[in-house]
């Protein structure tokens, strides 16, 4: 049994933390938060590319470092902890994973080296309005290699160079790769709950679209991409949730009320114990997800669902109860607590809300435990 990061992976993780502690302070995150004209931290994005993180799980033959997905999970946890304001998930978890999973060798050769080098920013364009993505929700369509339709919201859609788009072709949903710099694409920036992670409305009017993977397999491919992304995002959520517990603990130990530190009241102690329990359950599920992702195990859909559900719950609970532990000061713009509250919402929504994953999970369990 070796159900933990290895020593090398722990070293990578601690180096990543050191780098982000130095280069991604919350003070720096706030430059993106407070500046409406700054969709992401371009300088940090370049630095992260130089670290090689964008290509951590991309094979060396395609310009990556050729490490495994567990290494990528270790990096993801640190990015989540630092609420990094960069399009890492869109580019690495969505675009790179989709291309590695379903792309032709030509598509891999064209995109993966550029992703690893930080020359490409990705986006996943599946939603067209309120409510989950289903076969019925897809109206965008491709005909003769031209995409028409609207996607809203597309996280990082305002800065992305390439998008993975869910659209119908011949009446069936497929996945398509769209170069957003080509003609027929209109972008409209949107206000978001988490301004450190921007989004846009994309309107396609005959934009050139290449199919990614077999025709008509879009929903199944999307599920596979989301399974992989869900595990990686779960590590970001674990990192954020742990940071929330640390912040709540530090504040509770210094804040006095009624003549003693508030950390000495059971109401606060039990709240923090609840946060700890949720964080540990999330971490354990995330580890299993990492194992399933790294080994491409048949358990991946179930493991990814469990990882996403547990991590979404932990980060949501931790981020809201961190504010509560801070009291009034926690509700101010100046205190960092809302950065995590915002990011917890962004991460819980971006790959489909927890209730969608709960339904998927139970459907899988029903099949697995078929009488």
């Amino acid at each position, binding site marked *: *049994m*070796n*159900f*933990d*990061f*290895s020593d090398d992976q722990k070293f990578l993780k601690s180096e990543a933390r050191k780098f982000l502690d130095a280069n991604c302070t919350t003070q720096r995150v706030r430059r993106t938060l407070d500046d409406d004209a700054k969709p992401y931290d371009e300088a940090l994005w370049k630095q992260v590319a130089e670290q090689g993180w964008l290509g951590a799980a991309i094979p060396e033959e395609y310009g990556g470092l050729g490490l495994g997905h*567990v290494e990528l999970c270790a990096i993801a946890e640190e990015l989540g902890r630092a609420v990094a304001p960069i399009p890492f998930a869109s580019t690495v978890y969505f675009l790179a994973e989709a291309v590695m999973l379903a792309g032709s060798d030509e598509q891999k050769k064209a995109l993966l080296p550029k992703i690893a080098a930080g020359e490409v920013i990705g986006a996943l364009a599946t939603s067209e309005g309120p409510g989950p993505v289903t076969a019925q929700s897809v109206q965008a369509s491709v005909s003769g290699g031209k995409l028409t339709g609207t996607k809203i919201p597309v996280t990082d859609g305002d800065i992305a160079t390439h998008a993975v788009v869910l659209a119908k072709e011949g009446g069936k949903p497929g996945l398509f790769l769209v170069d957003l710099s080509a003609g027929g694409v209109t972008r409209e920036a949107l206000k978001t709950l988490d301004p450190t992670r921007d989004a846009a409305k994309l309107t396609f009017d005959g934009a050139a679209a290449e199919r990614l993977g077999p025709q008509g397999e879009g929903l199944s491919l999307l599920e596979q991409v989301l399974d992989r992304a869900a595990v990686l995002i779960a590590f970001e959520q674990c990192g954020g949730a742990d940071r929330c*517990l640390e912040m709540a*603990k530090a504040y*509770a*130990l210094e804040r006095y009320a009624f003549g*003693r*530190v508030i*950390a*000495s009241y*059971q109401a*606060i*102690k*039990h709240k*923090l*114990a*609840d946060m*700890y*329990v949720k964080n*540990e*359950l*999330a*971490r*354990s*599920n995330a*580890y*299993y997800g*990492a*194992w399933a992702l*790294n*080994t491409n195990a048949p358990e991946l859909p179930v493991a990814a*669902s*469990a990882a996403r*559900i*547990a991590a979404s*719950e932990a980060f949501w609970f931790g981020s809201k109860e961190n504010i509560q532990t801070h009291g009034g000061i926690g509700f101010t713009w100046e205190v960092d607590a809302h950065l995590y509250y915002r990011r917890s919402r962004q991460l819980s929504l971006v790959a489909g809300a927890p*209730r969608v*994953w*709960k*339904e998927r*999970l*139970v459907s899988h*369990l*029903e099949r697995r*435990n078929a*009488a």
Partner: protein
Amino acid sequence: MDFNDSPEEAAYRAQVQAWLKDNAPKKNAGGDPEGGDTMAASKAWQAKKAAAGYAQITWPKEWGGPGGTPIQQVIFNQEESKYPIPPNPFQIGLGMCVPTVMTFADEDTKKRFVGPALRGEEIWCQLFSEPAGGSDVAAARTRAVQATDGSGDWIIDGQKVWTTGAQFSNFGIVVTRTDPDAPKHKGLTMFWVDMSDPGIEVRPIHQMSGGSGFNEVFFTNVRVKDSQRLGAVNDGWKVSLVTLMNERLAVGGPTGAGWSQFLEAARGVAGLDGGPAIKDQALREKLADWYVQTEGLKHTRNRTITALSRGQTPGPESSIGKVVSALQMQDLANSAVEMMDQYGVINDEKLLPLKGAFHWSLMYAPGLRIAGGTDEILKNIIAERVLGLPGDIRVDKDVPFKDMPTGR
């Protein structure tokens, strides 16, 4: 990140598997796990394990164990659980009481007890909780007074409660009050006692669940030798911490009906729109949550095992098990009963799915949320020992025990 044994672990597992194949029982001994009519089978299995060096794998050679590692114990437990083994009534003794005796008793006492306990010939119980002190073990009122006849003997009077296995135990370790003038932690002394002493009366507790797995134990003029004292006079709190520390090493598994039983039952019960209840969205969401919690605990145990495998002491993650599983047991059982709607009021195993497992869980769960540390105490432990938050303000810490507020 893998689930593979190291080469040494794989070799040990193979050795255990081969031994179990030849020696483990092939069919269930039957009977009620709370009852005790499986005792003969339990003792026979324990004796077999002891003879082969599998009874207490981590015990050092001087205690009669093979001096194995915690991970070897985990491997043995994993493999053993694949067979229909009888209940284990020895664990409280071997896990908590006997290690305390081994730490504090003289050489003759150790020699006398360790072998029979290891072989399952003698069973031990732990006499800590009292009617006036459950979570607050140091508030014990059972008195031990030294006899005035110069023998050095001690006379014990008082009452213990929630004693697991007292009805079939041969010996016990008991926390007593020896100095009521000292603050509560400083006036306790620990002894071992022979449960067949005529002054000791064991009465089963009739639980709200109907069963009787625990007992009240009354001490009336029970005379023990000074040589039965474990540790110094008035040093019993330190001794009890040794006992409780050993308790924390136990790695618990799931209890009661779980998510898969719920899924199975929900297929057979009608739901809101006439289809099966498993199609009800509210139940599906709950099922997902229980699955995720259960998996979270399972993999938390895997992280604990990993630490053991690396020769490390398990981290605090191992402390979360019961606080999650006991509440889930109650919530899941209640949801299953409510799923049956009006029919749920029936509590007759012949008329219920899974022989009434959910109804049993519903009525047993309140006890599980209290036994071995209440939810509230466990959260205090996580807050204080894991997160390092301050201990509660203790108004009774420096007060002589006899002046402590008791509410009466």
